[in-house]
Every structure is written in C-alpha cells, then in structure tokens.
C-alpha cells in the first residue's frame, strides 16, 4: 500500500485527520474552560432568565453592556487582556433573580437559589438585594413626600424558623430601585451550603404613600428583584492545587 504521505491522490485522509485533531483540541479547550470555572459539565439552562430582567440587572451593575444586536460586552474585557504581575485574585459576581414559591400563599415572600456549581470555596464579600418601588398616581398631595419603612426578613438557613431583619427607611420621590444589604444572611447561607435564601418583604407606609415594591410579577419582568453577591475564592488551603 502506498503510504499516505507520498500518494498525492490519497490525500483524502488528511482533512479528516486534521478535522479530528481540531475536534480533539476543541474538546480539550472546553474541558479547560469548565475546569477553570470549577464545573463538571456545562450548565443545563432549564428556565432561561427573562431578557428584560437580565438587561436591567446588567445595566444597573455595569456588569455588561447590551448592544443593539443583543450581544453583551463586559466592560473590563473591551478587547484588551488584563495583565498583572501579582497573582490576580479570582473574583466572582453572582446575580441571582428572585423566584416565587407557589406553595407559599404570602404575596410578600420570595426566594433566591445560588447554586454551588462553580461556586465552591467562595467567600462572600458583599451581598445586596435590589428592589424596585413603583409609585402609583396619588390622590392626595401629602404623599408627595412618601416616607416608608421597608423590612426585609431573611430566613436563617438551617434554623428552621429564625428570621433576621434588615430595615431601611426610604423617601420615595419617584419609582426606582433601592438596595438592601444582606451580606450576613448570604454569607451564612454559603457557609451552611444551603443555597436557597428565603425572604419576606414588608413595607410600612406603602399603602398611604401609594407605592409598592415589585416582587415576582410575570407582567413586569424588567423590575424582577435580584440579589447581587460579590465573592472571592476562599483561602488557598482549601483549594486543590494540581501538581
């Protein structure tokens, strides 16, 4: 048999061979990306996040710019690579969107699930809940200065019932977003490995002020509440280092 190399017309093997090499290489790169994200396999997107909610969150956090064609650009990645001499710290920002518990009748409850896929060994440096308050047309003039007290009850994971409270007084001049610090509650949730964070949102004075917090409302996806968790890799002793 004429060896593949010298037989010009037998070159047919070449493209297949190089295609196989490329396919192997693509698989290797895929594996590399998943390893670096600490994932076993790519996530299975069962319920896509409503586009309106995603665009709102990314715009609010400048985490990404959404272009006309729908593509998203990350500002810190505008075409240049980030060089640093010291070991760069691996930081994560997790944006989790609120979901409503069908079982729970209360209109004021919602929950977040921050999966641990790719988030092992994370230390929560900051966590904030973003809530949108909508102002309804008010009949009386006095509600022009609409002062309300918002109470966010967060269920402490693993305690079966204890709720912690984050309280904030707001003066609502127009509809808009407001943030509530939940670092302790989310840090506790991460520490126990329980990734579900149950919340109950109460607003004293909202009725009189003709205002209401938008929770999980299918007809108002752009104002779905979201939780922003800033985290970094925990100290190295826990991390498995490849030799």
């Amino acid at each position, binding site marked *: 048999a004429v060896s593949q190399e010298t037989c010009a017309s037998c070159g047919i093997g070449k493209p297949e061979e190089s295609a196989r090499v490329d396919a192997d290489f693509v698989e290797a790169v895929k594996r590399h990306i998943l390893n670096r994200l600490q994932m076993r396999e790519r996530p299975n997107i069962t319920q896509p996040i409503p586009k309106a909610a995603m665009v709102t969150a990314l715009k609010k956090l400048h985490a990404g710019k959404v272009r006309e064609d729908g593509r998203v650009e990350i500002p810190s990645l505008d075409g240049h690579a980030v060089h640093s001499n010291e070991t760069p710290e691996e930081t994560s920002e997790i*944006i989790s969107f609120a979901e409503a518990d069908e079982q729970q009748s209360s209109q004021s409850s919602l929950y977040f699930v921050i999966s641990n896929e790719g988030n092992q060994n994370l230390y929560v440096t900051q966590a904030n809940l973003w809530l949108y308050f909508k102002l309804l047309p008010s009949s009386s003039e006095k509600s022009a200065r609409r002062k309300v007290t918002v109470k966010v009850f967060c269920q402490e994971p693993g305690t079966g019932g204890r709720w912690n409270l984050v309280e904030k007084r707001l003066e609502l001049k127009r509809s808009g977003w407001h943030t509530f610090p939940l670092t302790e509650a989310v840090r506790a949730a991460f520490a126990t490995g329980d990734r579900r964070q149950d919340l109950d949102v109460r607003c004293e004075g909202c009725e009189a002020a003709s205002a209401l917090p938008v929770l999980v409302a299918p007809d108002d996806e752009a104002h779905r509440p979201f939780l922003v968790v800033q985290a970094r890799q925990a100290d190295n002793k826990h991390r498995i280092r490849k030799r």
Partner: protein
Amino acid sequence: GLECDGTSSLCCRQQFYIDFRLIGWNDWIIAPSGYFGNYCEGSCPAYMAGVPGSASSFHTAVVNQYRMRGMSPGSMNSCCIPTKLSTMSMLYFDDEYNIVKRDVPNMIVEECGCA
C-alpha cells in the same frame, strides 16, 4: 514572544480562537463571544534556553549554574511554555436562576518562551 507563522520550528505562540456559537455554548455564556485558546509549541535549542526577560525562570537559573560549573546539564532541556498569561472576564448563566460574572486569572496565553 514569537508568533507561530509556519516559517520556523522555534518556540512560538499558536493562536487558536473558539467561537462559542460554533460549539453551541453561546446559550449559557453571555460574554465574551469566544475564547482565545492559544498554546505554545516549537523547539527550544540550547542557545534559546534562558532567554532573559519574562522567559527566564528558576529552572533557567539552575541550568545556568550548572553551565558555570562546567557541568553540561545534558538532559535538562528547556521547554516552550507560556511566559505571560492574562485574565479572562466571563459572564454566564449557571444552572439555576443566576448570572455569574467571573474574572478567571491566567486564562489566556499572551506570550511563549523557553524556560
């Protein structure tokens, strides 16, 4: 810091870009739209080992010490490895209702060298 252009067999950086759309990953990776999976390849002849600057490393320092003592570290060839890496920022969906923005260090090979 050489770029592989097919004309030399010396240690160089081979650029390799993967468009996430072509591998069906653009449904869960929001940004960037692809990954520079560059890699290093090529030979490191003796005269290239220990190239000063970013390529020199502890290994090269040891090899030079051997040379100064007249001991030829025959088996200690230098190898063509990444000598400058950069961080990649990624924005992606995970398998819950989350968007994750992550700065993954040492993800993109910017330069190769013999060390």
